[in-house]
Each structure stands twice: as structure tokens, then as C-alpha cells.
């Protein structure tokens, strides 16, 4: 593919192309799909959110299937033609084609090279030609020009976007100010152009026994809770808060309801909502909070709904490190850098192999939330014989399913 052209050729092209390409992000941050093939790219350095219209025509895959790419760094480095350090800012999945979209920045000799890349299940990496796509932009800076100048040239505070979520015709934008430090949640109607609203959010943080207005939302998702669109937002250290979207009026100061303290010393990475069948085939809706330092927290929508209807936490946790609030199931998702809902049967993760440091793009079957090939256990030995009882047959069939998912059909045991 043309992305594999040698660096020297690209450098020559750069000289002839000039410095500026219109509508290109200066930084490549959070990604989110909107309606009609729209891909939102948060560009904190440019103080913008870009909305790109991707070419239509991509087809849905014939069936749900797992990603099993165990060295994405190499694939991406080859595509970018960069040998620098790679930092992955976000991962999302195209709602139709189920292709992974990743924002990535390569840093080499202090120079950043950023891109949004599309990665297919078979490992083909394409750099999106964002400059050639139809696009619109939303400006994050909200300090109006009032004819007032300052004692020196100072840039206005802008927003570094921590998360985006598109729901019901609006883009929800959470962030930290590049100047001030306030938890701001913006509602931006899409298509861009209508008035956006900006709301400051206060929460009660039971682990800190403080009302907090300054801590930024780190990850969020708008979830339909009992018919009410509600932002489910996770903060550092790790309060989980619900905020009905209707409360987010412009200029309002809103107190979110703290429904859980998930644990201290942790930054939440992603909040994902999805439905999945359990081992009995019953379909339930879930919200998953993926964490950097801790287990991921799986919450049923049923429990979340109950917690959102209750008064919320108002007492400090009994001891440092205690958790409280809505019931969660810890999931063994360590090393995950970003996670997204993939399709009916899988979640997709960028995951760092903790031994080799390799970045993987791998799917986790919903309901199991683990990858069999991560483990060497007794079952792996060729002379292991599954017993012929109901439980052993169940384990064998489940393991066979995961072996097929993860690219080891030859190891299926009859």
C-alpha cells in the first residue's frame, strides 16, 4: 500500500506540499463515531473537534469475529514510516464495517507525527486521508472576544478533551481546561452550528469526603436509564457519577449523583455500554468501566438504574481504599490501554503485553471477558483428558469457542 513508501520520498513530498493542509488536526485525541459515517476527532492542540465524513459503502462483515493482532506497533510503525515511540490516544470501532479506528502519535527526535489509522481484522493498516474528507469543526475555546486585551499576549484557556460521546443528535464533550481546572461537560448539537451549552459539574467524592468541582471527568458514556438519557461519568480515584442529560443546561452548575466509589489510586480509561448474553444465553445490558490501575468494573444496567434512582452516596467510605455503592463485578482486563464495543459478541481492546511491551489489538468475547490464549493451564497439555460430565463438557465447548475466536482452531478438542 502507498502508506509504506520510504521516508525520504515522503519528505520530498512534504516540501512540495507546503506546510498547511486545511482541516487537519494538530493533535489526534479521542475518537467517536456519529451518524452517517461521521468520525469525530478531538484535537486538543488545535482547540477543535473535527467531524469527518468517511466514504460510504463499507459493508458489514458476514459474522462477528475476533481481532487477534499481537503486534500493532509494528503494523502502525510501518504504515506511518516512523521508528518513533507510539502513543495511542483512543480506539473506536466503525459501527457498520467493524473496522478499528485508532488515533496514534509517533514521537521521534522530539517531533510528533499523528494520524488516525483504520485497522482491519486481518491487520491491514490504512492512514486516513483526513485532509481530503468533507469535514466541519467545532471550536473548544469559549472565551468571547469582548474587545478587552491583556497586559501581555496570553492564549485563552482551551479544553483538553478527555472523552467524547455521541448520543441523540448531540456530542458530549468532557475535558480539562488548559488554563483553568474545572470539570466541564459540553453538549454540542451536531451538525455543528447551533449553540453549544457548557455546564460545570460538582460531585461528592466519598473517598475524599469532599465536594469536587475541579476534577475532570476522565471517561463517560450516555446511557438510557429508565428512559432518561444519562451521562455515566468516571473520575480519577474513582467515583462513578450519573448526570441526567436534561440537567445540562448552558451555564448551569450541576451536582452529579455519586453512585459508586470504585477504588482509589486509579484513572478510569473508558466507559462502555453494551448488551451481552451470559452462559445461559440470557441477554443483559451492561456498563463497563475500564481502568488503568485496577480491574475493570462490570455493572448491570439493572443495578445502575437502581443506583441512579437512589439518593446516591453522601457518607465517606469507611477506610482508605474502601469501595462503596453500586454492585460491580471485577473483570481481569489488565494492560488494557483503550477498549471499545466491537460487535454483538466482542469487545475490542488495545492492550499492552506486560512481558514484551507489544501493543495488541485483541477482542474479548462478551460474557467471558478473557482470552484463553493468555493462559497456560492444565487444559493445554495434549494428554489432558476432559471428563465426560456436564460441567467438563461445558468447559470444553466454551474453551473450543475461545480457541476458534483467538485463532487456534487446530487446538479444538472433541
Amino acid at each position, binding site marked *: 500500500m502507498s502508506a509504506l513508501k520510504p521516508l525520504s520520498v515522503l519528505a520530498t513530498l512534504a516540501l512540495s506540499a507546503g506546510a498547511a493542509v486545511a482541516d487537519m488536526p494538530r493533535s489526534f485525541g479521542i475518537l467517536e463515531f456519529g451518524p452517517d459515517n461521521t468520525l469525530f476527532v478531538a484535537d486538543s492542540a488545535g482547540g477543535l473537534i473535527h467531524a469527518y465524513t468517511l466514504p460510504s459503502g463499507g459493508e458489514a462483515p458476514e459474522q462477528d469475529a475476533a481481532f487477534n493482532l499481537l503486534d500493532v506497533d509494528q503494523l502502525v510503525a510501518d504504515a506511518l514510516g516512523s521508528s518513533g515511540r507510539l502513543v495511542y490516544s483512543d480506539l473506536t470501532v466503525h459501527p457498520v464495517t467493524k473496522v478499528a479506528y485508532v488515533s496514534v502519535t509517533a514521537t521521534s527526535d522530539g517531533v510528533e507525527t499523528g494520524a488516525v489509522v483504520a485497522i482491519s481484522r486481518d491487520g491491514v493498516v490504512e492512514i486516513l486521508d483526513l485532509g481530503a474528507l468533507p469535514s466541519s469543526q467545532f471550536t473548544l475555546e469559549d472565551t468571547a472576544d469582548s474587545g*478587552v486585551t491583556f497586559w501581555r499576549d496570553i492564549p485563552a484557556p482551551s479544553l483538553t478533551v478527555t472523552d467524547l460521546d455521541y448520543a441523540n443528535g448531540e456530542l458530549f464533550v468532557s475535558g480539562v481546561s488548559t488554563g483553568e481546572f474545572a470539570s466541564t461537560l459540553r453538549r454540542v448539537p451536531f451538525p455543528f452550528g447551533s449553540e453549544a451549552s457548557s455546564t460545570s459539574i460538582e460531585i461528592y467524592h466519598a473517598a475524599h469526603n469532599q465536594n469536587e468541582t475541579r476534577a475532570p471527568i476522565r471517561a463517560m458514556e450516555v446511557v438510557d436509564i429508565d428512559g432518561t438519557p444519562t451521562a455515566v461519568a468516571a473520575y480519577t480515584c474513582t467515583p462513578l457519577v450519573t448526570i441526567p442529560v436534561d440537567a445540562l443546561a448552558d451555564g448551569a452548575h450541576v451536582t452529579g449523583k455519586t453512585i459508586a466509589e470504585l477504588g482509589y489510586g486509579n484513572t478510569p480509561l473508558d466507559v462502555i455500554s453494551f448488551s451481552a448474553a451470559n452462559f445461559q444465553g440470557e441477554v443483559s445490558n451492561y456498563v463497563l468501566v475500564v481502568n488503568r490501575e485496577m480491574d475493570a468494573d462490570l455493572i448491570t444496567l439493572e443495578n445502575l438504574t437502581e443506583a441512579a434512582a437512589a439518593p446516591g452516596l453522601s457518607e465517606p467510605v469507611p477506610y482508605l481504599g474502601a469501595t462503596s455503592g453500586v454492585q460491580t463485578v471485577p473483570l481481569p482486563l489488565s494492560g488494557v490501554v483503550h477498549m471499545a464495543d466491537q460487535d454483538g459478541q466482542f469487545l475490542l481492546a488495545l492492550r499492552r503485553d506486560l512481558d514484551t511491551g507489544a501493543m495488541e489489538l485483541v477482542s474479548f468475547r462478551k460474557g467471558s471477558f478473557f482470552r484463553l490464549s493468555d493462559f497456560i493451564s492444565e487444559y493445554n497439555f495434549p494428554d489432558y483428558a476432559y471428563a465426560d460430565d456436564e460441567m467438563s463438557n461445558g468447559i470444553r465447548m466454551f474453551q473450543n469457542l475461545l480457541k476458534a475466536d483467538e485463532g487456534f482452531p487446530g487446538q479444538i478438542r472433541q
Partner: protein
Amino acid sequence: MMVRASVVAALLCAATMASATCPSRELGQADIYPTGDVLPENMLRFYIYYPRSMGASAGLAHIRLLDAEGTPIDGAFLPTREELWSPDRLRLTLLFDPGRVKTGLKASASLGRALIAGEAYTLEVSGKSEDSNGCPLGRPTTHAFTAGPADVDPPNPSTWTLTAPAAGSLAPLSINLGSAHDHLSLAFRLRVLDASGEIVPGQIALGEAEKSWSFMPSRPWAASQYALAIEDSLEDLAGNRPGTPFDRPPGSDPLPWPNRVSFSPEG
């Protein structure tokens, strides 16, 4: 195929710029805010203003907080996935880890505040910080200061002293704030409104250590009533806002404070 040469070229244009020859003279020093030489031990942030648009690696990696012996203090600033640069990459905001600023937190209990009242410190921006062309600043920038007692008092405009200008003049409206305030707040969160509530155009200047604020109108003052408008997001150096201290226990109500202070230029 989604790849076009122009885009790949744009992605790499910075790489070609990096090979440019750096000027032999120094690029200039950075400016550090707040500028005071006594700063509260619970201060929330430093701002670094660079003379040039800076490169990808210029941030936290090239900034150190040193104690009186010159030993770097680890973990003082909150690492964020994306550093808090202004869009033009001329200003970097450094947040002290709020877990170490607030009382009663794990990080606060185990690590303590990064600053201790009475101790001397130096914030140092390395001269090796590189601009977007890969050229180093040259000389380090330092700001020596002493940590003062924690500031837990919300800014209260009713305690500010306004010196009203003369009607018909371009003389500044001067306000003694009594204590240091966040310089960005002073730039963006205070405005002068005319009798009809419109923002008066003009220029803001800040006094020593950001303890005073003055405003020179573009047109002479009228002999009518004006108001200083204060937004509730105005902060002092410790993140206290009018009515609400940074460390606000639950159940405590915001204190009353005036968001308008009237004044009339006298003829």
C-alpha cells in the same frame, strides 16, 4: 485506498522543519506564573510561557521542582495523558497533583503536600526544552519562591479596594485584591460593564505578584455608573473561588459574595 500523498506529506512536514538550522543565539527564556516570591503551600498550578511554540517533548520532562538543597521533588505535578498546552503551544499549565493538595486523601496522607510552608523552592525549566523546530531554548528559566501558609479563604470581592477613575479620563480603574489571584482568572473572569450592562473594551494590567488589577478603557469614562463583574469561576492561587473554597466539606453551603461591584467615575 484512503492514503494520499498530500496528507502523508502533511504528517511529516514537521519532520522536515526539524532539520532546519537552529539560531546560534539563545531563543530566550520562559516566563513563569504566578510571579510572587511567596506562594501558598496548597497552590494549584504553575504556568510556563515560552518564547516560541514548543515541540512535543518540551513539557513536564524538562521541568523540575527543586527543594532548598536543589533536590528534585518527584510526583509534584499531575501527569496527564495530554499535557495542558495552549493551542499555540506557547503556554503549558502544570497542575499540582490535587490528591496532594486536598486534605485527607491517600496521596496527601502518604506523600504529603509537595510544598511545605516556610521552605524554599525553585521551579526550573530546562534550557534543553526544544521548540517546534527542535531548537533548544538555551538558558534555563528558574523561579525561586518560598512556600507560605495554605490559602483556604475564598476570594471575596467585598474586601477589594477600588480606586475609581475620573470621569472623562482614560485613567485606570485600580483594584487592590489584597492577595494573589490566578493570572488567567484576572485576565478572563473580571470585566467592567457600562450602565447598560455591556462589556467596556479596554486593556487589563496586573500588578506585582498578581495582587492588583487595573483596567484602562479604550474610550474615556462616562460620568455614570459602571460595575465590575466577577465570574464565579475566578480563582486564587489555591483554586478557591468566590463563595467556595477548593477544599469544601460536604454539607457546607457556599458563602454569599457580590458578583457585581459598582463604581462611578467622578467628574
